């Protein structure tokens, strides 16, 4: 049939047998390979297989709550869900995007920009498309588990601040751990962990944060969780109890509404902070969920610096409150007799320069100088004491250095001295500067908390308490700077007079019935007269009032600062409200909501008449007379007019 040999029987038996042997050899070779993997190295590969399929998912421990001194919750945590978009499979993601948009109410641009932002991260890392899911969102995700396979839920712990802005500056806020913190944590933190970033949240982060738990799950090759192996429950963070009294805090917050400044109320025996307000402020709830970059930028660049805790970080001239330091220095140094008097004609000339007083006080002794806040009296006292003595007593009374309060970022303020000027400005101290310093101007810078502490020290005979916010901190830290009883009497009687005597610098309304309410006003310029003149505008002065009760060995001290208040006397009612709330509470009186604020209580008649008289003496210094309550008639900076011949 065919041209080729069909019946060729020459089958190469030998070669076929050789082929068989070769086959056997190959199978043996392969089995040796399997033996090596499956028997010799089996343990190694078993480990790898186990690691492959098992993932550890952290269970976030809730942060500890913050309570006020009576156990009322000020800060809390609650569990919430974030919605994750799994983007292992780009096609699937694109396919379900429209459904996700409508189901979760997220705009297409928003989703796309989030995906775009996560482009550089590994694909198996899901994107959080909704940090805080509503109940409707949760229902949507749960009911579409099978038909939208790219969504997942993650439980997180959110910080909750039920009173929003209340106490915000002291509480601080939380945020994602920074690269730097991550590096310094020795592996304790993982990226994305939430830590305290400012205020008490930062200070007591170690107590507040718990230990995260761990859920070990079996995942498949695309990372989908198949089942749970075991759970290690998280250890919740410990709650901390603060010294803050919610009732006092509320009163102070209400009084500071819409103002710029700070209030600190302190237990004068222990240093326990009862209230701390800084305005303007922020709402820490905005930080609890990822803060949008635009808002963060706004908070950081806002000229009113809402992130600043003014109670411990505002370093400003104290104005006439500083006269308490002067009076103490005058009496304690014994450089000047306690009976020293000065005639105040409304101004005085030192080193060829005219320094103003806001009123012609006539014959003035120490008591009247404190009560009516006579600048001329203290100009003379300052000249006689000299900057070194002033500086010594100011420092001894806690000004110019940290109080040691348990908050991060406290500022030290500044008390000028001869050495300081030589170190910083490389010139000799100008004697004229001493005159400015004498009334709390010039280079003097203090924080509200320092003033509260200084007044406490003077009124308690020299107890410099360390302010603190943590209630558990039972040991009271007091630095002693003994002040003689005679000095305490004289100075505190002056401060009693400020509030309670007819020619005191505060309004009649500030007086509190049945309470020995005392204090000192201060009105500090924020700009030199020369500068004001050049700019052709007037920046309103900062108003201070530090009040306390009772007159001697006080229970409570409250320092208040209102920037741009114009008069220290405007600030006094805030302090009065807080002291009254404290007193009422102590006596079991439920205090009515504070309605009288600094703004709607009228300044004293004295002030009005002074303003009316302001235009009179003319010249460049005419503006200097717009003041009251011991406002200084002189510049606040070294570089300004004080050096003029």
């Amino acid at each position: 049939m065919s041209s080729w040999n069909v019946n060729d029987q020459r089958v190469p038996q030998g070669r076929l047998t050789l082929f068989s042997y070769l086959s056997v050899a190959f199978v043996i070779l392969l089995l040796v390979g399997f033996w090596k993997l499956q028997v010799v190295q089996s343990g190694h590969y078993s480990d790898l297989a186990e690691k492959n399929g098992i993932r550890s998912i952290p269970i976030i421990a809730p942060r500890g709550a913050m309570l006020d001194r009576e156990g009322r919750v000020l800060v809390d945590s609650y569990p919430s869900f974030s919605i994750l978009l799994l983007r292992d499979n780009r096609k699937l993601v694109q396919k379900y995007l429209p459904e996700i948009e409508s189901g979760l109410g997220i705009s297409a641009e928003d989703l796309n920009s989030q995906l775009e932002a996560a482009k550089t991260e590994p694909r198996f890392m899901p994107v959080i498309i909704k940090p805080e899911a509503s109940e409707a969102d949760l229902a949507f995700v749960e009911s579409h588990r099978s038909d939208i396979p790219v969504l997942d839920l993650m439980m997180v712990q959110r910080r909750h601040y039920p009173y929003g802005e209340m106490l915000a500056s002291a509480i601080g806020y939380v945020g994602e751990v920074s690269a730097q913190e991550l590096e310094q944590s020795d592996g304790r933190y993982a990226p994305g962990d939430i830590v305290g970033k400012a205020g008490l949240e930062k200070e007591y982060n170690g107590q507040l944060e718990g230990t995260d738990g761990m859920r070990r799950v079996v995942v498949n090759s695309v990372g989908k969780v198949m089942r749970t192996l075991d759970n290690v429950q998280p250890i919740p963070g410990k709650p901390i109890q603060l010294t803050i009294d919610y009732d006092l805090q509320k009163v102070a917050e209400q009084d500071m509404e819409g103002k710029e400044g700070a209030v600190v109320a302190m237990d004068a025996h222990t240093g326990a902070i009862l209230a701390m307000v800084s305005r303007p402020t922020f709402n820490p709830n905005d930080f609890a969920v990822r803060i949008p970059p635009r808002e963060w930028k706004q908070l950081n660049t806002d000229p009113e610096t809402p992130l600043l805790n003014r109670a411990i970080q505002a370093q400003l001239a104290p104005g006439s409150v500083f006269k308490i330091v002067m009076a103490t220095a005058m009496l304690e140094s014994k450089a000047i007799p306690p009976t020293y008097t000065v005639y105040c004609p409304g101004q005085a000339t030192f080193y060829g320069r005219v320094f103003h007083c806001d009123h012609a006080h006539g014959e003035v002794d120490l008591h009247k100088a404190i009560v009516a806040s006579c600048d001329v009296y203290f100009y003379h006292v300052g000249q006689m004491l000299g900057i070194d003595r002033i500086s010594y007593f100011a420092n001894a009374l806690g000004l110019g250095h940290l109080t040691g309060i348990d908050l991060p970022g406290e500022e030290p303020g500044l008390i000028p001295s001869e050495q300081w000027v030589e170190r910083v400005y490389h010139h000799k101290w100008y004697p004229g500067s001493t005159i400015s310093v004498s009334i709390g101007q010039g280079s003097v810078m203090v924080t509200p908390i320092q003033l509260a502490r200084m007044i406490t020290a003077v009124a308690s005979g020299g107890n410099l308490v360390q302010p603190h916010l943590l209630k558990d901190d039972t040991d009271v830290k007091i630095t002693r700077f003994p002040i003689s009883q005679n000095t305490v009497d004289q100075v505190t009687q002056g401060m009693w007079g400020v509030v309670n005597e007819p020619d005191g610098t505060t309004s009649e309304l500030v007086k509190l019935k049945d309470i020995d309410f005392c204090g000192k006003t201060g009105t500090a310029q924020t700009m030199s007269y020369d500068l004001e003149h050049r700019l052709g505008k007037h920046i309103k002065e900062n108003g201070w009032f530090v009040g306390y009760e009772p007159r001697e060995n006080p229970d409570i001290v409250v320092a208040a600062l209102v920037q741009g208040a114009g008069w220290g006397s405007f600030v006094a009612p805030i302090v009065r409200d807080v002291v009254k709330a404290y007193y009422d509470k102590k006596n079991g009186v439920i205090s009515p909501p504070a309605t009288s604020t600094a703004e709607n209580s009228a300044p004293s008649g004295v002030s009005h008449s002074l303003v009316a008289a302001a235009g009179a003496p003319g010249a460049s210094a005419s503006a200097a007379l717009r003041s009251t309550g011991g406002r200084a008639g002189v510049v606040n900076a070294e570089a300004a007019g004080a050096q003029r011949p």
Partner: protein
Amino acid sequence: MKNRARLQDFDWVLLALVGAISLVGLLEIYSCTHAGSLAGMQWKQLMWIGIGMAGMCLIAMIDYHTLLDQAPALYIVGIAGLLVVLVLGFSRLGAKRWISLGGVVNLQVSEIMKLIIIIVLARYFTDVRSERLTLTDLAKVGALTLVPVGLILKQPDLGTAMVLVPVALVGIFLAGVQWKHMAIGVVVIALLVPIAWNMRHHLKPYQQQRIQTFLHPEDNPRGAGYQILQSEIAVGSGGFWGKGFGKGSQNQLGFVPVRYSDFILAALAEEQGFIGVCFVLLLYLGLILRLVDNAQKAKDRAGMYIVMGVTAVLGFQVLVNTAMVIGYMPVTGIPLPLISYGGSSIAFVFLALGLVMNVRMRRFVN
């Protein structure tokens, strides 16, 4: 003279081995896919086995001499088919291997080419009268083989293209090769390796990557090296006794790549252990030895060459696939005969076995 097949000469032992291997495949496919969206794949596989068996009987009925008579025509049809695939074939899995047949069955022409090359080379070697092949013979065999190899490489399908080569090599070995030619061959290969190495840039990127991955698997833990690594982890973690049917974490959680197809032996090794691998490889060895036995008992050289062509293809596939699973060879996409899931692959094996039965059933016929 008509060669009449005898039913009692049907190779029941071979069929039993094939049945056993197929059953192992069905069970492992079930284990790999039962939990997911691919559940039920074993029934499709079973269907293909049924179709394959029918095809096997069909092929066994046509006298292989008739097929050998048609060898030149079959070769031309096969080459034409490959060209059609290249020109018209639609892309699937990134390769133009398929042509649509009535929109129902996707036929892989290159699988059919494997059958055709077995027949064509058997015909050629039978025609050789001398005791040893001449250089001209070698050149002709080379040309006959390399044309379809080149066309399949162009698709591109390295795996299938490679499978054609052992048919020629085994044939040359059996037909007898002169020592000096063997020596020249060795020298040429030794020279070609560095040239091929320099030519590697002309390979498709994915082929380059496969070679790179084979040489340095640790370079890319998420890419192709990842597949080999995961396969090795599956095999190694199986241990001596295996993790049990349906209990291999690598397999069940999807870490083993294409676990129901190319890497099915890794899945099996994980769940059935070294013992299971021994069982499967011994089944294959039995199959190969039985095929060689059939070749030895073939009525004529033509039948012997056909059986050994089939043996060469199956043996090569088992060797390359198994070696790949344990990282001894790069990933080439060669399935494990009868066990890997896949219609084309199953159909080819049964049609090829049909040729073997064809030869067997006619061994006593005159």
